[in-house]
């Protein structure tokens, strides 16, 4: 087995088999349950088009996935260092990119589990069935690069800042910044700055795609630019993560 697979398996095992990892998944599933009950028990909201409810759930799953990713990523380097287990990894015949992709293997496992956990929620709230299959597919297609990009971002900051707390704090601030347009509402996003930010923001790209596909039934061909934004985000954050691990000073 190559080092990437080995590290990935270790990370996945730590996430899924340790109490800490499972507690995280429990917390996330409770949040999803609360959201689902809230969405369908509110008198007004319950009469929104079910597609809009599905859209809200998809956005929430992506945001929670990004949150888990920054938590895992922030711990990836600095956490190992604080626990004294980084040195043996650096002294093994493992290249920086193998280390980073191995760590991301654990992130992929986390996202896959979250995605699978979210599917029953998407099905349950999308009872009208409008674009349900598309919502499942697009959550994977757009959610994955956005979430994994945040994972790479966490690793980059973890290697640069060498402190789990500092990396996590910085990651969360960046996450809040990228999620903010959706909280600000459509009118503020119509300004020049708002439009530019919306255009380059990977989180906006994913959520606006969910809106276009699930609510407005637009085809994939019309989402090309947004897909490109999420993929550029993924590639850039991966490059920064590998570079920061390579240049890490012990």
């Amino acid at each position, binding site marked *: 087995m190559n080092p990437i697979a080995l590290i990935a398996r270790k990370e996945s095992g730590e996430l899924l088999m340790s109490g800490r990892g*499972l507690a995280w998944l429990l917390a996330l599933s409770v949040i*999803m*349950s609360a959201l689902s009950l809230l969405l*369908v028990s509110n008198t*007004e909201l*319950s009469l929104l088009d079910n597609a809009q409810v599905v859209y809200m759930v998809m956005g929430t799953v992506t945001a929670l996935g990004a949150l888990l990713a920054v938590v895992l990523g922030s711990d990836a380097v600095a956490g190992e260092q604080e626990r004294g287990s980084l040195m043996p990894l650096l002294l093994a015949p493992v290249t920086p990119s193998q280390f980073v992709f191995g760590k991301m293997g654990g992130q992929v496992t986390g996202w896959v589990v979250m995605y699978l956990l979210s599917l029953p929620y998407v*099905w*349950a*709230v999308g*009872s009208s069935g409008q674009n349900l299959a598309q919502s499942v597919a697009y959550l994977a297609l757009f959610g994955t690069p956005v979430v994994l990009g945040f994972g790479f971002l966490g690793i980059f900051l973890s290697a640069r800042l060498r402190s789990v707390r500092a990396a996590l704090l910085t990651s969360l601030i960046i996450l809040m910044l990228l999620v903010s347009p959706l909280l600000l509402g459509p009118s503020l996003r119509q300004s020049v700055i708002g439009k530019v930010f919306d255009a380059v923001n990977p989180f906006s790209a994913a959520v606006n795609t969910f809106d276009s596909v699930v609510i407005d039934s637009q085809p994939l061909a019309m989402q090309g630019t947004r897909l490109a934004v999420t993929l550029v985000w993924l590639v850039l954050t991966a490059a920064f993560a590998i570079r920061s691990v390579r240049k890490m000073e012990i």
Partner: protein
Amino acid sequence: MKKTVISLLLGLSLLGLGNVWAADSVSISLTPDPTNPPSPQMGDWLKFHSVVGNPGAQAAHGVVAWISLVQVDPGHEQPVDLEDWSAHKAVTEAVLQPGQNVKVEWPIRLIQAGAYRVVISAVDRETGHVMTSPFVDFQVRRKPVVESGRILPVAFGIPALVLGVLAWRRYRGRAS
């Protein structure tokens, strides 16, 4: 002097009576669609039909006709914001020729339970008052909002599943 006063009075009265005497330039009808559910509930769609016509001899310019909804439950009378009820809130006609009729459909989605009154209003550039259609009243029944058959098993089942795995891991850890 007498002639002047009489002419002045006649002119004033004609001016004053102009608005009362001027017939509505636009006529509006409002009828519910025959396929509307007889006892609609929250989430149902209702459709209303209007014919906006010009019964007069003069053309009407800048005609705007819009739908209004009010809740008429005793003690809860209030206008309704049509934001979520209808995407089709108004029609305009630059010119409505004499005898011309424009058919309009008004679809609305029933968001909230209660008793409602719908009316279509219209104005044009010349007439000095709002012209309205007859009212149509309808009742919206409450619908159970939690589709417990789907949501509840998922909302409680998924966390229970994760909790079960957590407990099993703890038990295995203690056993070994």
